[in-house]
């Protein structure tokens, strides 16, 4: 019997989206973001009416977008964490996981669809928030604040949220929602701390004065995807700022560690008893 793999993927991704779309947190964040953008637009408009100089307009429009970009990035991180966790946890809580795993699909396929469905929603939220901000701030400042380099920045944030969802997914296989969420933020904090500490060191200095904490930092620095670099790079690209990174080396590291993370997640879900 031939099974249409594409139809299965589509059905399972759609199922993930339908499930997570009902998340109260998403609805709250969606409404809060929209109100915040509308408020920003009104304030900027009022400011522009009292300062009609075009140079000020461009700066104000960009500044407002910059502030919104930081807020949207943070909320995207929160939503990515929530969806990454709840995409699997709710299957456990509702005791529906058995239904999914008895379909003629592999566990890898189940995992991929849950991750892609969650990612689609987070990215849609991100795009909506960003484009609405750019449109309203452009209208308020009567300048175009959207540029081509923003597309690259959005693509980088897409990678960032994807990796956050994978990390959340792993934790959700073992822990309840709140502990998984705390573990996710602890992981992001540790990755951030270790990369910020290790990035200033030369390669030869990695093993110098090695103590317990430095060793942990070094392990995290070497084997985890340096996701904070991705978000830093996204900001730098968006605002044409300079960033001290060896892009070739960091891209290669990100590719390898992300592949390892996906490989590891697959091993974990394959071996897990349900």
């Amino acid at each position: 019997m031939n099974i249409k793999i594409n139809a299965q993927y589509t059905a399972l991704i759609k199922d993930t989206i339908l499930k997570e779309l009902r998340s109260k947190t998403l609805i709250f964040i969606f409404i809060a973001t929209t109100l915040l953008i509308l408020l920003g637009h009104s304030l900027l408009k009022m400011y522009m009416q009292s300062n009609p100089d075009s140079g000020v307009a461009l700066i104000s429009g960009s500044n407002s977008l910059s502030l919104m970009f930081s807020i949207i990035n943070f909320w995207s991180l929160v939503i990515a964490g929530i969806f990454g966790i709840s995409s699997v946890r709710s299957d456990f809580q509702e005791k529906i996981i058995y239904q999914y795993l008895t379909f003629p699909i592999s566990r890898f396929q189940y995992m991929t669809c849950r991750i892609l469905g969650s990612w689609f929603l987070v990215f849609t939220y991100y795009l909506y928030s960003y484009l609405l901000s750019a449109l309203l701030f452009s209208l308020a400042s009567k300048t175009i604040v959207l540029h081509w380099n923003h597309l690259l920045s959005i693509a980088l944030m897409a990678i960032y949220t994807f990796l956050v969802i994978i990390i959340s997914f792993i934790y959700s296989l073992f822990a309840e929602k709140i502990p998984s969420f705390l573990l996710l933020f602890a992981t992001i904090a540790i990755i951030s701390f270790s990369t910020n500490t290790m990035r200033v060191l030369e390669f030869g200095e990695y093993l110098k004065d090695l103590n317990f904490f430095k060793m942990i930092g070094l392990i995290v620095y070497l084997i985890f995807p340096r996701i904070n670099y991705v978000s830093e790079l996204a900001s730098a690209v968006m605002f044409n700022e300079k960033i001290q990174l060896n892009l070739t080396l960091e891209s290669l590291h990100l590719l390898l560690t992300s592949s390892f993370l996906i490989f590891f997640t697959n091993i974990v879900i394959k071996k897990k008893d349900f």
Partner: protein
Amino acid sequence: MNVIEISSLKKSYGQDFTLADVNLNVESGKIFALLGPNGAGKTTLVKLMLNLIKADHGQVLINNTASNLAQSRMGLAFLPEKFNFFPFYTVRGVLEFFGSMKGLEKATLKQQIDDAMTELNILELQNRKLQTLSKGQIQRTGLASLLIGDNKLLILDEPFSGLDPIGMRDLKDILKKQRELGKTIFLNSHVLSEMEQICDDVAILNKGEILFSGSLQTILNKGESLEDYFYHLVSPNREIR
């Protein structure tokens, strides 16, 4: 021909064996009942067959394919003791989703859903969300899901639990009809009276060991009911009153 072949299967939690060296075959086109008291290891065995848990030792083949491969679940449908799905789905929505996961074409799927809902007498519930249905209606939706797709093997976990007499009768009729269509049905239950009415073969599991495996007729030929035979086998030191 065997649809399910279980050989040297072992599974333990901690130091106690939940399943100790289980060997079992289920023939095609029959209704097979796995019987056993609570805690006998029945659910563990079903979970191993469905690859929901990993065996410590041994192998399960479903249609000659190792149960850890997704292909082994092609043509297999499973109904848990309490069927459940996300409450925002409608009855038709659930069945459409199940059909999509089984790779059915839209036209075939629509026809199968209509037939299944008619058979289970839930056609008028098709646009109702699961959250608005009674337990019995949800279980009927689960039963309808068994009829979606080209399933050769149906696995039902405690199918009679929670059903009213009409539901029980309907279920028995559906299972008999599916057998007539050449499908193999694996039932995991401890409702012996119902099993005696519909099954062809039985296996009795107690404390992780298969105490009997064979045809129901073999038991009945001994002049004992299934219930008496089960009772003797599982509790040999007790007398039947």
